[in-house]
């Protein structure tokens, strides 16, 4: 079965701290895609990254970085030098090919990040 687990329900940090959001996934498929989305207090869902199962290279985009490890089925997200504007709910999601026809996203429960000034 497919499943995404974000064990951290809420995280609170002070501005400029680094913070890592954990994501663990389950799938029987060998080809799959992982995503992170951000949901700020305004409510919209903003796409951050998509990574396929054959690409285990870490990715960095400004203050954001992602660590994909197939050995531990994890796709963790780190924000360096956090800012108040990073306060949001962050969702990790999975989409695979064989068991998930139609491209649906399986979302984790979300991690609510609060960055205090």
């Amino acid at each position, binding site marked *: 079965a497919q499943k995404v687990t974000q064990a951290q329900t809420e995280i609170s940090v002070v501005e400029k701290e680094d913070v890592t959001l954990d994501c663990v996934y389950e799938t029987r498929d060998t080809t*799959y*895609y992982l*995503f992170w*989305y951000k*949901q700020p207090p305004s*409510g*919209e*869902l903003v*796409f951050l990254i*998509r990574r*396929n199962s054959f690409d285990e290279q870490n990715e960095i985009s400004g203050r954001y970085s992602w660590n994909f490890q197939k050995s531990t089925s994890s796709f963790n997200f780190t924000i360096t030098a956090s800012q108040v504007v990073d306060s949001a*709910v962050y*969702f990790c999601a999975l*989409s*695979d*090919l064989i068991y998930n*026809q*139609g*491209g*649906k*996203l*399986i*979302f984790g*429960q*979300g991690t*609510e990040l609060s960055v205090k000034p």
Partner: protein
Amino acid sequence: DTAVSQTPKYLVTQMGNDKSIKCEQNLGHDTMYWYKQDSKKFLKIMFSYNNKELIINETVPNRFSPKSPDKAHLNLHINSLELGDSAVYFCASSQGPFDNNEQFFGPGTRLTVL
């Protein structure tokens, strides 16, 4: 020039009523989706349409009926609304159903059933 738009943004109605939410995308995508986000922020797929054809129906009660008049539009009609239908409903679109590209989400419609 909004990519995925939904109307209305807020919907407050009484139990038993019928209501519709409209969604339009101007990205030229073939696939559109409806997701439901409950009060605990959990997001779950409801439906997926590809080129006006239903390809995913996630055991949603048949009071919910999606309709896709063309591939740029996917509307959601809900009959006999119940308290448990209160949620935020998100429309999304992607290039295709089998390429696992990112999905672009609309701003959401907050439905409150009284």
